């Protein structure tokens, strides 16, 4: 038995002109407003994200609604365009809630019944950047269905329970919470500006507490969510909620590969730049073959990573049967390329690479966190075992 090739051979792995234009616009915004020094300053300010930068990116450029159809207030684009935005965000480790709101929360909502007024309204608000959403699941959650809920919903719709390690929750206006209700699994919306809510450490009853955690990645802060009879609206019931959450995780994992690609590209470019300039032993260190070969190998990894990430984005855009395979390949490959590039970047910079001041650590921390986010490479490889019929030994 052989594995299906299906639509993969038809996949368009290049960038269209419109995608190149989008990239150029996002890149110039980030170059201007989000250089590495600004990223570090922003992280030290301990704000969840830079609201002015987010406004420009999400509202003025309209990227928040790329995945949302026009009639629901979005741009009617696809995962291919969202992937290009994520490449650029990865390249600058920008502290903005694009992945968490524009991809994960939006995709979860798109899996609900968008004919329902409350779903459509919420989608419109996220698409137009009027509100920031977050899917209330640990960032480490791997795709492949919806994980069991750790929150319960009472008959009155109020939520109770705890969810740890959620990205994009600090600073979000609305949380999309998978919870086990009286008639089964559902997806619920909790507004953060509702009465009885705090964003800080205090425990308040009748609401949700968003407790910021000290996260490895300074540019994508995590939080633990404590729900204590938090008032909530149900967006989807047992018939749709699981699929909606599964779909969001799949889209998130597939598009995360593009963020990892952009991140790795920056690490290589910066390392090449540095090793051409830095002299030791009377030569640029970039003329030593041991280093040249390491950088050439990083470039090789990038060539395949770009193809794998494009393949995943294209499959997601086409909603093809290839999606689970394409996403698992892209995630397991690109995650490793990004971590490797960031680690080499630190090493080939020598002492300066170990400093807080140099941006290399921001990339290393993002890359290492991204490796765990939405399923580790190992989890994705194990998923492939089933998807492409390479079963594990029995026993």
């Amino acid at each position: 038995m052989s594995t299906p090739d299906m639509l993969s051979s038809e996949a368009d792995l290049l960038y269209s002109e419109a995608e190149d234009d989008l990239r150029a616009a996002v890149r110039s915004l980030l170059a201007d407003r989000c250089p590495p020094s600004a990223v570090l300053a922003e992280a030290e300010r301990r704000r969840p994200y830079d609201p002015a930068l987010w406004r420009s990116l999400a509202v003025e450029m309209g990227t928040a609604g790329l995945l949302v159809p026009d009639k629901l207030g979005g741009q009617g684009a696809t995962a291919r365009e969202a992937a290009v935005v994520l490449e650029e965000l990865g390249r600058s480790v920008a502290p903005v809630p694009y992945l968490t709101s524009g991809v994960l929360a939006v995709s979860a909502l798109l899996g609900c019944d968008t004919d329902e007024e409350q779903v459509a309204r919420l989608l419109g608000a996220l698409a137009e950047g009027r509100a920031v959403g977050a899917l209330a699941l640990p960032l480490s959650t791997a795709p492949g269905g919806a994980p069991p809920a750790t929150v319960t919903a009472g008959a009155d719709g109020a939520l109770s329970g705890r969810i740890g390690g959620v990205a994009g929750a600090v600073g979000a206006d609305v949380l999309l919470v998978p919870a086990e209700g009286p008639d089964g699994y559902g997806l619920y919306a909790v507004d953060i500006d509702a009465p009885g809510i705090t964003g800080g450490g205090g425990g308040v009853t009748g609401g949700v507490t968003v407790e910021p955690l000290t996260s490895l990645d300074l540019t994508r802060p995590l939080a633990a969510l404590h729900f204590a009879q938090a008032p909530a609206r149900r967006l989807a019931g047992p018939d749709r909620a699981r699929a909606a959450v599964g779909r969001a995780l799949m889209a998130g994992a597939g598009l995360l590969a593009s963020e990892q690609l952009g991140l790795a590209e920056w690490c290589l470019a910066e390392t090449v730049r540095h090793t051409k300039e830095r002299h030791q032993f009377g030569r640029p260190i970039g003329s030593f073959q041991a280093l040249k070969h390491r950088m050439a190998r990083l470039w090789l990894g990038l060539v395949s990573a770009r193809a794998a990430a494009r393949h995943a984005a294209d499959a997601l855009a086409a909603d093809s049967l290839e999606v689970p395979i394409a996403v698992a390949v892209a995630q397991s490959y690109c995650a490793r390329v990004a971590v490797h590039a960031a680690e080499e970047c630190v090493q080939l910079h020598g002492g300066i690479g170990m400093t807080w001041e140099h941006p290399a650590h921001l990339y290393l921390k993002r890359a290492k966190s991204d490796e765990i986010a939405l399923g580790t490479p190992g989890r994705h490889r194990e998923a492939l075992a089933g998807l492409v019929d390479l079963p594990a030994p029995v026993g």
Partner: protein
Amino acid sequence: MSTDTEQVTADGLRDRVRQLVAEHPVATTARLDFLRARFDAGLAWVHYPVGLGGLGAPRSLQSVVDAELGAAGAPDNDPRRIGIGLGMAAPTILGFGTDEQRTRLLRPLWTGEEVWCQLFSEPGAGSDLAALGTRAARDGDTWVIDGQKVWTSSAHLARWAILIARTDPDLPKHRGISYFICDMTDPGVEVRPLRQITGEAEFNEVFLTGVRIPDSRRLGEVGEGWKVAQTTLMNERVAIGGGRVPREGGMIGRIATVWRERPELRTHDLHQRLLGLWVEAEAARLAGERLRQQLAMGQPGPEGSAMKLAFARLNQEISGLEVELLGEEGLLYDDWTLRRPELVDFTGREAGYRYLRAKGNSIEGGTSEVLLNIVAERVLGLPSEPRTDKDLPWKDLPR
């Protein structure tokens, strides 16, 4: 060159294929006659000029022709047997040959009637090919060649060779080289088999003693051979990006099949490693597909050199894992008989052969170390190695 470049469309090509097959029915036409007719119809390599097997069409349209002919059950020119001719000699002849050379040589090259080999490497000049010492001395309208070449694949089958030799030892190494077409039937050419680690003798040593090559069989100007050779070597590395490869199309397909059919061989450790290599092979396949799409859109990138490096490593690791997976059977080898293979098939024979043959993938056509240097310098723009020999006359180089 071609006059009707713009008119060639996919539909136009399909019409031409239909016409070719109508005039030369596959079932009743001898293989060689069909291939010659295909060449004359401009359907051999559509991006070549009219009259030389092509139509001056975009290269991307070749896949249309190949698919149509494949569906019609037409014979092909067995590209694995004539890879050096198709991949290296042809583009060089097209780029630098005279009209006479192109007309005489390209048709039998493409049909496979005349096999080509590459007389480049020497015992003293491998990675540092420009240091080669085979002499070409002028004698009126003729060049007299003396020297030794080595690792020459297919020399025992070849009618012609592309040859580089030193025409001026007083110049620095890159400048005193000229490029020739050598007739392998010349009495001064002696081919001796060289046995490889696989047991077979795919390559040879070639002794050139007083071989006489008319000046009309020189490619490019005297002393410009290095430049001409660059065309050959570039094409050697690009030749991969040809057709669309299905998932599990390469070496990984062999081990995946064994894995599916032989559950008793499975262990957890092998499973982890297999999945890791499967992902890498799939990512490399997608990169090859992306390169193909770039070429079809007329945006060739430097990614070509990446593909050879990636496949060399993957072929080696995957075939090594397969031998290990086979365990007890991995201790056996199919056949050590000294054979003279007609074609090279990296994924052919048994796992042990594949494992040994794949070792050559990181040596032939430029070693992986040298390719990494090229990527570092030409793609990433990193500084080159110190080169102490660049401006010295060739004859004064330390040996």
